[in-house]
């Protein structure tokens, strides 16, 4: 028994390093260094835990520009067995519909038993891609997964899901797409030999839209949504009074709750 576990990772601007453009006063994302989306590190850890349980391979996939291969090298350094970069100018302007189609086709081509993604990305934070992958392939899904438990004898994966006001344990047939709940899978330290291999010698396989036979089904043209405009949000005006004595603070609160 061994499973193929495919992990979706994305290169995003480092949220901690995003500065303000002095001319426009807007966030300047272009100048921020590109890093692996934080929640994807936890998706990798979830994948390694399944591999520990049933054996098999963990393969990282990323859709992005050629330089996104750095996050794949990092994924291999963290313990992935292999990695694929899905890169093509044709993907430009894709919203979550073609993005999840592309990753769904890649997961199919990799013969995935399990696909794991982070709960959402820090740059667009829709959380729509994992269910989108499952929907495109007609696969089962386990989102907001806080713990995973492989059940190879049943060809199922079980997960503890965080649901409104509680938890549930759900078992899903393979192949299944998992979205790992953020904060639940602490990434393990990378073994040194993997780190050296991933950072120095490893080069990911590269696929384009043609390889996945989706050249006419991606990009701006097939994206149902478009951005109609952006406006800066004016901060809410607050008094900003800071007092020294608890009693003064209590007086202010008293006025509100009285």
């Amino acid at each position, binding site marked *: 028994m061994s499973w193929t576990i495919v992990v979706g990772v994305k290169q995003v601007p480092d949220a901690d390093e995003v500065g303000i453009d002095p001319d426009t006063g807007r966030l300047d994302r272009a100048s921020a260094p590109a890093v692996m989306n934080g929640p994807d590190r936890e998706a990798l850890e979830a994948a390694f835990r399944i591999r520990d349980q049933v054996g098999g391979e963990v393969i990282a996939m990323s859709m992005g520009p050629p330089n996104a291969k750095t996050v794949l090298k990092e994924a291999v350094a963290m313990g992935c067995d292999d990695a694929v970069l899905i890169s093509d100018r044709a993907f430009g302007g894709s919203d979550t519909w073609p993005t999840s189609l592309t990753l769904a086709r890649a997961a199919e081509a990799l013969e995935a038993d399990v696909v794991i993604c982070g709960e959402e990305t820090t740059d667009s*934070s829709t959380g729509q891609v994992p269910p989108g992958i499952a929907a495109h392939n007609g696969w089962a899904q386990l989102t907001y997964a806080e713990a995973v438990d492989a059940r190879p004898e049943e060809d199922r994966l079980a997960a503890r899901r965080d649901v409104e006001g509680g938890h549930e344990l759900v078992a899903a047939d393979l192949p299944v797409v998992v979205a790992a709940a953020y904060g639940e899978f602490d990434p393990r330290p990378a073994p040194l030999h993997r780190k050296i291999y991933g950072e120095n010698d490893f080069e990911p396989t590269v696929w384009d839209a043609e390889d996945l036979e989706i050249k006419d089904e991606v990009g701006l043209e097939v994206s149902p949504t478009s951005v*109609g405009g952006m406006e800066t949000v004016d901060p809410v005006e*607050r008094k900003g009074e800071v007092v020294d004595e608890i009693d003064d603070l209590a007086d202010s609160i008293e006025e509100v709750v009285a």
Partner: protein
Amino acid sequence: MSDDDEFENGVVDVEEYDDVWVFVEEHDGEVMSVSWELLDEAERLADELGDDLVALAIGEDLDDVAEEALERGADRVLVADDPVFEPYRADPYGEQFRAMVEKRKPSIVLIGGTHTGRDFAGRVAVPAHAGLTADVTELGVDDDGLLEARRPAFGGDVLATILCEEHRPQMATIRPGVFEAAEPDGDADGEIVEADVVVEEDDAISEVLEREVGDTADITEAERIVAVGHGIDGDLEPARKLADALDAEIAASRAAVDEGWVDGARQVGQTGKTVRPELYVAVGISGAVQHLEGMNKSETVVAINNDPNAPIFEHADHGIVADLVDACPELAERFDEAAEPQEVVQ
């Protein structure tokens, strides 16, 4: 050679689609408050568009839910009532919802941005090739009758308007708490329509083995909130004392939820809920823009933080730089006395 004939990019004749749908999320007969919030907001959109307002419920034994949806303003309620839908699972829900959308062609579909809503929305939008916007906080209609779904972007500094021009339906998940639900008017005029159930248990690809739902507190309705952040360092007790004294609900920033100190249902901010209490006390919350965005509808904001440079002080009406462990109980004492002078505690 072009493949255009085979693949039309999912573009449809938008004229064929009308009505505004709201998904009524219920678990064990209990409706999530975001559904009623949406029904109220959607009534405004439907009026503006001259469309019908349709509530859609999926589950088991939905008579009461359907009736309440009519009382709360729906012109019609579509009901898919079957044991296969209880408890919730993404695959039966998604397939049923999708079948209803494909048959009845709604123009707009609004779904509460709960874990459940965010879980299955894609299983409708993907096969329907619909436009789906996540975590919307403002809704409008433009001059052409298109839905304007506004959502915070870049961590909340910018509000992006997302349109879906040539695909239908125009779908969105809406953050809980951003709209206020009106009271039902008791007038239950309208029609309850039983939809064909297209899902069978044998086709299900998932199974709920256990379900424990406990903390169903709804912070979006709270008048007073004491919210904790990373600064409490795992010690919830001082904040809880203050919350008890103020008769407030406990809420949290994402940092405190990720640490496991507070349940995710109580998270305020971009990936949590929007709250609008008369009093919001931020305890050990630094004031990241993603958090501010969920609490800036509060009437009065009070900040307690030991870091004088914490951005929260600029976004608060009243603040104090103090150690939380001392300040919270001290404050609590004042209100214990004030609120219940005659009560003997312990």
